[in-house]
């Protein structure tokens, strides 16, 4: 045991309350409260020659690491990233050189292990200057695989395959992001739906809900199959398809309405819905790990104004159609 800090114990098993914590985290409940106390942890029965793995103090990060190390005796050095995951913390600098060097010192790690090697998750690299950590702490930084699940093979072979070093964004990864995005739009969506239901038509309320859900649920799922490269244009297309369905419904369903009034409603859907989906799609760029800042800037400068314009026009047509409806009663 080091004199400078306490070494806590941990295991590679996840209990039901860990899994419940993960569910809450995925749904955005108490977002920055899913924390582990920073410091040094002993996994299994480590010796001075055991590996040191570094992670963030976000429960999902810590749990992903330790649950992948079943049967391994080692140390886990937990950095204080304010409960934020490795990638985001690295981008902000909290999973960074200073915190790492400081934590090595404050836990007395040099007295605990005989070697001078730290295994870091690859996605911590944007925040860590490996050669500077070495210079300041004496510890060499080795970047392990992106996914903790690849650690057993990495430890066995001593190297990471190119595939282990790639970040993928498959269907499951995209789907995992849906709950937190959904929770964010629930209130605005409910308000819009109630407002439209009471003042306009039930179909208008459904249109708003459809456009929003398409952006938050459908878009992440269908992302790679939607045409065009940019998220905003993909979102416009997805929203456009939804809006077209509503426009068709207006003509089919409202046969008692005068043609010009049906055209008015159809235009309201066609103009208001796509930009809503497109805006949510644009925001999804922040949840991915392959859109670049330059690319997002370009996308914004291209699409923000068309989004605002078409949405504005859509609101105008919605208002006009609603007013005409009220006058007619």
């Amino acid at each position, binding site marked *: 045991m080091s004199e400078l800090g306490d070494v806590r114990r941990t295991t590679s098993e996840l209990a039901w309350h860990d899994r419940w914590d993960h569910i809450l985290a995925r749904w955005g409940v108490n*977002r*920055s409260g899913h924390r582990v106390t920073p410091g040094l942890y002993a996994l299994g029965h480590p010796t001075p020659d055991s590996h040191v793995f570094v992670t963030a103090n976000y429960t999902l990060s810590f749990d992903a690491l330790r649950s992948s190390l079943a049967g391994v005796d080692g140390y886990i050095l937990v950095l204080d990233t*304010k*409960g*934020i995951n490795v990638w*985001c913390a*690295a*981008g*902000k600098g909290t999973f960074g050189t200073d915190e790492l060097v400081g934590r090595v010192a404050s836990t007395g790690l040099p007295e605990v292990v005989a070697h001078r090697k730290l295994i870091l998750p*690859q*996605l911590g*690299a*944007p*925040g*860590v*200057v*490996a*050669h500077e950590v070495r210079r300041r702490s004496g510890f060499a930084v080795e*970047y392990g695989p*992106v996914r903790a699940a690849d650690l057993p093979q990495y430890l066995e072979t001593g190297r*990471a395959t*190119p595939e282990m*070093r*790639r*970040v993928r964004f498959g269907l499951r990864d995209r789907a995992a992001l849906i709950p937190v995005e959904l929770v964010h739009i629930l209130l605005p969506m409910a308000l819009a739906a109630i407002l439209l239901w009471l003042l306009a038509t039930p179909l208008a309320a459904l249109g708003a809900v459809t456009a929003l859900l398409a952006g938050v649920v459908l878009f992440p799922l269908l992302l790679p199959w939607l045409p065009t490269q940019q998220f905003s244009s993909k979102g416009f297309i997805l929203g456009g398809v939804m809006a077209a369905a509503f426009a068709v419904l207006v003509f089919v369903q409202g046969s008692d309405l005068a043609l010009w009034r049906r055209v008015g409603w159809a235009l309201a859907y066609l103009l208001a819905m796509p930009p809503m989906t497109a805006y949510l799609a*644009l*925001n999804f*760029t*922040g949840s991915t*790990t*392959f*859109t*670049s*800042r*330059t*690319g*997002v*800037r370009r*996308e*914004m400068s291209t699409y*923000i104004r068309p989004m605002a314009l078409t949405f504005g026009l859509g609101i105008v047509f919605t208002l006009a159609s609603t007013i005409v409806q009220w006058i007619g009663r």
Partner: protein
Amino acid sequence: MDVEIVAPCCGSTCACTAQTVIVGTDLNTLTYDSGLCVNCEMCLAVCPHGVFEAGPRAVQLAHPECCMECGACERNCPTGAVQVDSGVGCAAAMIRAALTGSKEATCGPSDGACCG
């Protein structure tokens, strides 16, 4: 996608036979100067999108179009051969920065900004 060669090596009196060429694309801010590369292959290890590939004397820029500007390569390059403008690439943070008039988009509860 244009590969822009910015500056050829001067190579007048030095014995170096490798040409220094800075390459990049207009898709993003990533640039790579092979003349400064010491082949430590750290960029290869840290890049999440396989932008770099191993080479005989220096690392090669294989897929610059895949770069997401995370900055891991620049940060871990000991010689500064790789440069990129990294920062928060989240649309919501950029919009917030534009609306509040602040320069740089940030994340985190302490800044009063977006993601927790």
